[in-house]
């Protein structure tokens, strides 16, 4: 019998729709896989076995009644633990919310349930989505399925690892500076940061509100597109949600082609700090795009070299404000309330115990950048850099349809290597950050294994805002050509665990 966990989401949905398998069988197969391997991987913080099976039974009943099923009905999914789930714990990888049971569903959660996508559980992440390795989780690190001693990227390392270890065919992530794309790159999976405002942030715990964006993660470009259409679209509960039709991403994924397209290689994303094997696979992909009929040229985006600096002022500034809500008064952890201490002291004691080191660093950095006397020099200048980066993109997209680069400068690094070296850790997001600052769309998909370490390399594709469909058109073409070249999808080379 076919191993149901090796199928794509599109294949699973088709088999359920045709009656070849039931949603309960599919869910049970994935729960068994979680049971078998997640002790080693630690992708999940919480598995909702009963809830998942109940949802699966409802899908099967719906089918028996002859009701129409959605394109992902009965397909299991791993949800990043940053989205609220009614009645199911939501920790954001932090002790400060340990034990909190949200009384409401995030819009993304509601849409997944409405589409009959089976939510298997909640995935591990860097605390409050701050990090590039998932080592900042208060509940311990996640291993990269390609090599369990290495990081699965971050902050959405639980989601990427669940895909690469075949514990789920779909996952949801959030991307503030690369937290969907960088984990996808280092685990040989596909991840998309939609246009800012494309996917509702309602019920998504806020880190940096002008940068945070939820998006789809999968093992194939088509699966990511199918999930993208389920979660995207205007939401009146999010005042920054774009009130326009969702770009036709599924149609684009089904008609992948780069013939006649103009593609720009970002000149600034190369050189010192870029691993040789990453650049080798990237160059081969550039050649492949030419063979497939694209016009490829180099494009300079001179302000991108200041993107990392601007990001590490803007994101911490917004985080210092957003995380002020964790005051130990209405929900979550409360420490030291012995009847003698003031509310202010209890808040400070609780935050000191509830937040991990990276969250504390960023709160203090943001507090510093926003304090009087420093505001203009730091936050003000960072906002100017943001304008310059937007202009670089606008100029580039006058010349080309999409931009490409490596997603990350290196492959997955060993667990522990950068854990107490913040600046080294921050470099993992060098290529992904400009897109968050400008608010446009980007994808990462696998383009090979680095020869020196045998680990996955990601290709980043960047499109203008609300042109998310271009990512899928190019991504699907690259994916098909590479499968043709290799004879199989890259993910099949991942260890079986």
């Amino acid at each position, binding site marked *: 019998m076919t191993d149901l966990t090796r199928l794509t989401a599109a294949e699973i949905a088709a088999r359920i729709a045709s009656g070849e398998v039931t949603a309960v069988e599919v869910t049970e197969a994935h729960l068994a896989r979680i049971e078998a391997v997640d002790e080693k991987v630690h992708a999940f913080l919480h598995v909702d076995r009963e809830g998942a099976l109940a949802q699966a039974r409802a899908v099967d009943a719906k089918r028996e009644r002859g009701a129409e099923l959605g394109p992902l009905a009965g397909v299991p999914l791993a949800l990043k633990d940053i989205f609220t789930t009614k009645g199911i714990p939501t920790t954001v990888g932090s002790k400060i919310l340990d*034990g*909190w*049971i949200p*009384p409401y569903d995030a819009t993304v959660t509601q849409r997944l349930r409405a589409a009959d996508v089976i939510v298997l559980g909640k995935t591990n992440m860097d605390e409050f989505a701050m990090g590039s390795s998932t080592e900042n989780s208060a509940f311990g690190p996640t291993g990269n399925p390609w090599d369990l001693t290495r990081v699965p990227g971050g902050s959405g390392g639980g989601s990427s690892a669940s895909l690469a270890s075949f514990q789920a065919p779909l996952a949801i992530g959030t991307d503030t500076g690369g937290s969907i794309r960088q984990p996808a790159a280092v685990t040989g999976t596909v991840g998309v940061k939609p246009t*800012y*405002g494309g996917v509702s942030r309602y019920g998504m715990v806020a880190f940096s509100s002008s940068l945070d964006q939820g998006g789809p993660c999968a093992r194939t470009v088509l699966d990511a597109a199918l999930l993208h259409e389920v979660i995207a679209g205007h939401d009146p509960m999010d005042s*920054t949600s774009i009130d326009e039709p969702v770009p036709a991403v599924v149609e684009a994924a089904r008609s992948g082609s780069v013939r006649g397209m103009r593609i720009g290689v970002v000149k600034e994303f190369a050189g010192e700090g870029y691993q040789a094997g990453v650049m080798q696979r990237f160059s081969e992909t550039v050649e492949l795009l030419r063979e497939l009929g694209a016009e490829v040229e180099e494009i300079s985006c001179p302000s991108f070299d*200041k993107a*990392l*600096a*601007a990001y*590490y*002022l803007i994101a911490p500034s917004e985080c210092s404000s957003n995380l*002020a809500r964790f005051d*130990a*008064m*209405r*929900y*979550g*952890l*409360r420490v030291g*309330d012995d*009847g003698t201490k*003031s*509310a*202010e*002291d*209890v*808040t*400070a*004691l609780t*935050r*000191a115990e509830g*937040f991990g080191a990276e969250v*504390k*660093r960023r*709160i*203090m*950095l943001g*507090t*510093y950048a926003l*304090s009087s006397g420093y505001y203009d*020099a*730091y936050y*003000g*200048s*960072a*906002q*100017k*850099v*943001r*304008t*310059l980066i*937007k202009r670089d993109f606008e100029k580039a997209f006058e010349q080309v349809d999409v931009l490409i680069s490596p997603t990350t400068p290196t492959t997955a690094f060993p667990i522990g290597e950068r854990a107490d070296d*913040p*600046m080294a850790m921050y470099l993992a997001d060098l290529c992904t950050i400009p897109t968050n*600052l400008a*608010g*446009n769309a980007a994808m990462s998909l696998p383009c090979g294994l680095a020869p020196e370490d045998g680990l996955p390399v990601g290709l980043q594709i960047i499109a203008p*805002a609300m042109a998310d469909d271009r990512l899928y058109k190019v991504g699907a073409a690259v994916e098909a050509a590479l499968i043709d070249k290799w004879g199989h999808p890259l993910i099949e080379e991942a260890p079986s665990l």
Partner: protein
Amino acid sequence: MPGITREEVAHLARLARLELKAEELDHFAGQLDDIIGAVARVSEVADQDVPPTSHPLPLTNVMRADEVRPSLTPQQALACAPAQEQQRFKVPQILGEE
């Protein structure tokens, strides 16, 4: 731009309501100094006549209809409170006792 001292970190921690231990202050002071040194390069654009961008979308005053909708019950709202009393959140003293 100036570096950051241990005393400044202690001040920031107070402003941010973080009760840090002495060894944390030492550790963070060194790290924050490194990070601030690195991010200070944004000041290269300080003198340029460029408007700031605070947000990717040019949205202002997005309102939804002012209609009565279902909301949480007091029990639901209080379900995860660290402490409660008489259907209210119970908090430590806010004003000092004289």
